């Protein structure tokens, strides 16, 4: 960890201004990801702006029947919120499938959304990584890749987005509200929050320096049955190998997204339209163009089988 300065922001506007004003400054809320990365000098902020106490923690109904989740609402608060449990079950299930009770008590909605990847080579700071050092190369290619992404990757990065919550938000068509350094708000569709690596794996999201997520808003509940199935090598405290989030309607239609298979929650609307044709059809379309390694090719049949399980459970 490199020495850094620290301030508690007095307001959202002040927080945004403070980070925008100083190159290398970062927001800190729960810190469950940032602090770990600072210890190994993958993150080396010169200045931290603490936003934990800002009034961005509420969870409120929206006029159109949706739900607005403050950026600082903790994972625990969101997962245990009565409306989330009742109307957005996939979100509650995804959140409690992640991390541990202690981490969920600290981790915030916005922080979780932008958690960084879990590629083992991202953490191996003496080896090349295009996310850490743009242009240095990707040590994961040709290395140990079992956990890494199979689709949406590029020759420069095969890191997977390891999140659970984000996969649920993706099928709930959430929108992310931000405030920019000039004070203007904007909304970003959840599908645009996580960028594919392409030629620039180091650019992971479209937020400008100093731009702060203030809320995540869910539209009206989608109805149907809600499912989140997370497959992993042990029953808890592990990132997914593959996860499936689904909202399924009685007529056989629905929405589905896959976690831990791609650099972002992997939802392909054209594939989802094939749900009435069964899991194989969905997965074949959703994983078109996949470039798995020998070690992680199993993720594609596993995704199909996990979706089949979810569909079987929905029928039961």
């Amino acid at each position, binding site marked *: 960890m490199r020495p850094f300065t620290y301030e508690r922001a007095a307001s959202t506007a002040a927080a945004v201004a403070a980070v925008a004003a100083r190159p290398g400054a970062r927001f800190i809320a729960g810190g469950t990801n940032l602090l770990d990365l600072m210890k190994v000098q993958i993150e080396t902020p010169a200045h931290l702006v603490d936003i934990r106490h800002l009034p961005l923690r509420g969870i409120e109904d929206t006029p159109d029947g949706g739900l607005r989740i403050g950026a600082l609402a903790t994972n625990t608060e969101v997962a245990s919120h009565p409306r989330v449990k009742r109307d957005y079950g996939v979100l509650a299930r995804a959140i409690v499938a992640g991390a541990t009770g202690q981490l969920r008590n600290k981790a915030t909605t916005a922080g979780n959304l932008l958690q960084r990847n879990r590629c083992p080579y991202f953490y191996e700071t003496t080896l090349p990584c295009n996310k850490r050092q743009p242009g240095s190369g990707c040590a994961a290619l040709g290395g140990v890749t079992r956990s890494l992404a199979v689709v949406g990757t590029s020759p420069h990065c095969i890191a997977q987005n390891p999140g659970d919550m984000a996969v649920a938000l993706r099928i709930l068509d959430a929108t992310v509200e931000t405030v920019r350094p000039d004070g203007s708000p904007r909304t970003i569709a959840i599908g645009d929050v996580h960028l594919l690596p392409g030629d620039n794996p180091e650019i992971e999201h479209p937020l400008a320096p100093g731009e702060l997520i203030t809320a995540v808003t869910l539209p009206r509940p989608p109805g149907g049955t809600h499912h989140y199935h997370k497959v992993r090598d*042990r029953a808890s405290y592990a990132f997914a190998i593959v996860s499936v989030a689904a909202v399924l309607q009685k007529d056989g239609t629905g929405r589905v997204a896959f976690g831990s298979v791609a650099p972002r929650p992997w939802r392909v609307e054209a594939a989802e339209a094939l749900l009435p044709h069964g899991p194989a059809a969905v997965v074949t379309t959703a994983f078109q163009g996949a470039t798995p390694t020998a070690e992680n090719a199993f993720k594609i*049949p596993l995704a199909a089988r996990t979706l*089949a399980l979810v569909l079987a459970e929905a029928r039961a």
Partner: protein
Amino acid sequence: MKFDTPAGQNSIDRMRIVGRPFRRVDGVRKVTGTAPYAYERHDAVTDPAYGWIVGATIARGRVTRIDAAAVRAAPGVLAVLTTLEHDAAPPGFRTTLHLFGGAEVRHYHQAVALVVAKTFEEARAAAHLVRIDYDAEPVRCDLAAEAHKAVPVADRDSPDYPEVDRIGDFAAALAAAPVTLDETYTTPDQTHGMMEPHATTAAWHDGQLTIWTSAQVVSWHRNSLAQALGIAREDVRLEAPFIGGGFGSKLIMRSDALLAALGARAVGRPCKVALQRPLIANNGTRRAGTIQRIRLGATHDGRLTAIGHHSVNGNLPGAYTEAAIAPTRLIYGAPNRELSMTLAALDLAEGNDMRAPGEAPGLMALEIAMDEMAEKLGIDPVALRIRNDTQVDPRKPQRRFSERHLIECLTVGAERFGWARRHPVPGSMRDDHWLLGMGMAAGFRQNLLMPSGARVRLEQDGRLSVETDMTDIGTGSYTILAQTAAEMMGLPVDAVTVRLGDSAYPEAAGSGGQFGANNAMSGLYAACTTLRASVAARLGFNAEDVEFAGGMVKAGSRSVPLRDAVEAGPLTAEDRITYGDLDKDFVQATFAAQFAEVAVNRFTGEMRIRRMLAVIDAGRVLNPLTARSQVIGAMTMGVGAALMEALAVDKRHGFFINHDLGGYEVPVHADIPHLDVVFLDHPDPVSSPMKAKGIGEIGLCGAAAAVANAVYNATGIRVRDYPITLDKLLDRLPRAA
């Protein structure tokens, strides 16, 4: 006290305190944070400096240059020790590796520098500034690829066996056998994953060193450290009163101890060094992976006529071999046998002891092979093992087992587990989306005898203190020592104070190889026997027929308070147990029958343990509560070995990439249901005056194979390549959808 004839009736047989389920006497200190570990000895050392270890980032080659100028200029830095400025330290006990010094790099994350600073954070930050140049050589780190270069090797811990251990005519018997099996099994590299990392606080005073460290065997560490520093062992005081787990990783000294001592000397003040968690897998030791070929020949009625077990292993040149064939020497009878091991050179962290070395990985293979053989024969797996029990050492039939009740383990276990409900045809049992399977395996682990000493002191207030350099690595040593002393002296447990892990105390067996409890208690038994004689003499009794009970000393109609013996002053006694050659006439070992029920999701291949049972035959159980904890912990480790634990080798760079507890997965609570343990009651008078045997490792032996066999029974998919992760099942599971 020399133990050279089987124990007769003695005071321990009363079992008024020994054998009872006492809770840990150190339990309150553990859960209130008042049992400090080596890195937390704020009571002993104020204002220490902090060391941060820099690990090599090549696996093999030489360090050509270390530029630490920026480190030395960084805030708070007190000193930088580089490997180029030190001579290579001689390897310690049970290891071939030098821990620091010299230019040669033999494995990734080998310690090449220590940054010492005023704070931990300053040391860590400054360490990032070091620049090291290497001359790297090609690495050998793929066991399968190097296997053809492996050479025959003897067993370090059983040097009496020839490199190829032949009995009868194995080849002819196998060729003639009507039913045969020839399969190859692999086990991966594993890391110990103990909660407390290797950690040391070191302080010098007038050329004498005191270290507070995490050591399973105090004397081994102390001697190794003195040797590495080039000082006399008498000039090293080592304290290790509390240890947060070891599983074999702390049997031998690691670089934290040496570097803390060097760092403290360099900066002229106490220094603390922990092996950073991400360093442990590659800097510490591992359980070395194996490739095991097992060949069995049997008659149609299930009698084994031939057993062949060949294990290929990889390790640093000169290092030892994981003796996976060890259990096969003694677990089953068969007149024709061929057991052998070979060793290939690998440039990975040194393979060395990990809980039940040899037996654990050996049984992972052999006990799948037995399951496969049972199926080929159409014989129940429990019955096949019963049919092949042996009561003698197959190599020396005149050498009997002292106590061997494997058959009782198997029959009691089968009954209690409801084994009869198992369907022998795989894939026959279902629960909704889950395929259910039951599996079992036999377990075997040797009982090792080590000299062990203790000192006891009866104070004038009637309290008894016990001092020995025995360790408690979380196992319950404090508690059973207090029970043993209380039993011997006729005192309540809370009248006994136990002090452990200090090199100033008499040398004990230490903790490892499941030899700690039986030997350390026997050493204490010896010391208490001596103390009883002193008490009897002071009170005017004939030592032979005196009974110590209820705080009284009695013989015939005369009864005197024990405290009367110390009216004139405290009494101290010190003794140790040593062993004759009873093990030449008797095989001493522990036995287990392991049962598991596993559910496999027919869609995803996810595996969940539903229940497990271990029936254990390990001599007298000294405390059923702490013994049970040992066994369920070991069974949990068996679940890890079966389903998830594996160090992943980056074959280009020669290191384990999943070198933290996030990447190297061990079971969590959610993976482990209620585990059932039954202890058979067969005290072993050949083992020691305690009539106890090892209990810390037998619970692991066979556990992983029981799980593996249950997965097979659930699915019909035989995985011979541990761990059994779901990707190895997927393409053979029933069709989904």
